[in-house]
């Protein structure tokens, strides 16, 4: 209140106020600087803070968790338990929890089986490692086999006979036909 009070006499485009004095201008400038500094420090206007905490959406969570009784992803489940889970998630979202916090709360309530993706620990790690290992093995296999396939194709091309030779009669007829077009 006091900050704005100090600038009451500074009216742009209206000419100097009858009560305007140089000390008033200085006070106003100082007040403005303080206000800008205060707003700059405010977490409410910190754009990085706003960008770092996007609003958690229900569909995003539903895709990542399971209905614990029906053992299917929550986004396709329609059982009474899935409705309870949804209501619980809605409550957490309403509390302003982030996606990670919501998932963490769900694990605390229902255990790790509530997560759709297997954990990256113990035997579950195989779910991530095996596909990578299979892809690497296939690449290795291709790297081994491709040169031999190419060599085989080249050898076949080298040993295969050229296009069949024309018989003397056909050659003569072809020459005659070509001469007619000359």
């Amino acid at each position, binding site marked *: 209140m006091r900050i704005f009070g100090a600038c009451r006499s500074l009216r742009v485009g209206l000419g100097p106020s009858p009560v305007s004095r140089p000390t008033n201008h200085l006070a106003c400038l100082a007040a403005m600087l303080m206000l800008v500094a205060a707003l700059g420090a405010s977490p409410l206007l910190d754009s990085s803070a706003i960008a770092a905490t996007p609003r958690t959406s229900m569909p995003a969570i539903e895709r990542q968790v399971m209905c*614990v*009784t029906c053992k299917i992803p929550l986004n396709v489940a329609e059982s*009474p*338990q899935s409705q*309870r*889970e949804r209501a*619980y998630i809605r409550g957490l979202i309403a509390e302003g929890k982030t996606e990670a916090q919501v998932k963490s709360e769900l*694990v*605390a*309530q*229902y*255990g*790790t*089986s*509530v997560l759709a993706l297997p954990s990256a620990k113990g*035997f579950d790690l*195989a779910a991530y490692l*095996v596909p990578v290992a299979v892809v690497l*093995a296939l690449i290795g*296999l291709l790297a*081994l086999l491709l040169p031999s396939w190419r060599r085989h194709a080249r050898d076949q091309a080298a040993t295969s006979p050229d296009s069949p030779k024309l018989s003397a009669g056909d050659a003569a007829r072809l020459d005659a036909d070509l001469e007619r077009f000359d």
Partner: protein
Amino acid sequence: MPLLIGVAGAALVGLLVYGVLSQSPKRTLDEAIKQGHHPTAPASTIPMPLLSGNGARTLASYRGKVVVLNFWASWCTPCQEESPILERAQHTLARRGGTVLGVTFRDSSPDSLTFVKHYGVSYPNLRDTTGEFAQAYGTTQIPETFVIDSSGNVVAISRGEIDEAFLNHAIALAESV
């Protein structure tokens, strides 16, 4: 080359078999009971939070009492059906120094608390938040009930809804040991 492919294929099949075996529920307790043994209740030192929210307990902290260990969840219909039987057992056991001990599994605490209030459950309940305790008992379906004697040994198992006859017989067996 065929040898390498064969080894890789065998490794994949081995991994699959190991996965199926390690994920399938343990039935060693059931086998032991069938053979007339009383195996030690597993995972008795795993601390679990009380559903009421006041601290944590282990199964071992009930040593010296006959314990009717019951796995349940609010969404489980048979759990609702057997709830009055367990409550009656609690009244009987409490007079003799024993207790029913509920363990919620794959259930949110607000839902479990609603169940407790609705069915007037008076016995203590713990929350198996990691599923580690249930896994030690081979529990995948609920309800499941394990009757444990005062020495901490399992004397009877019911995988499914209990009836009064089973529970009375199992408690009598636990008390006689």
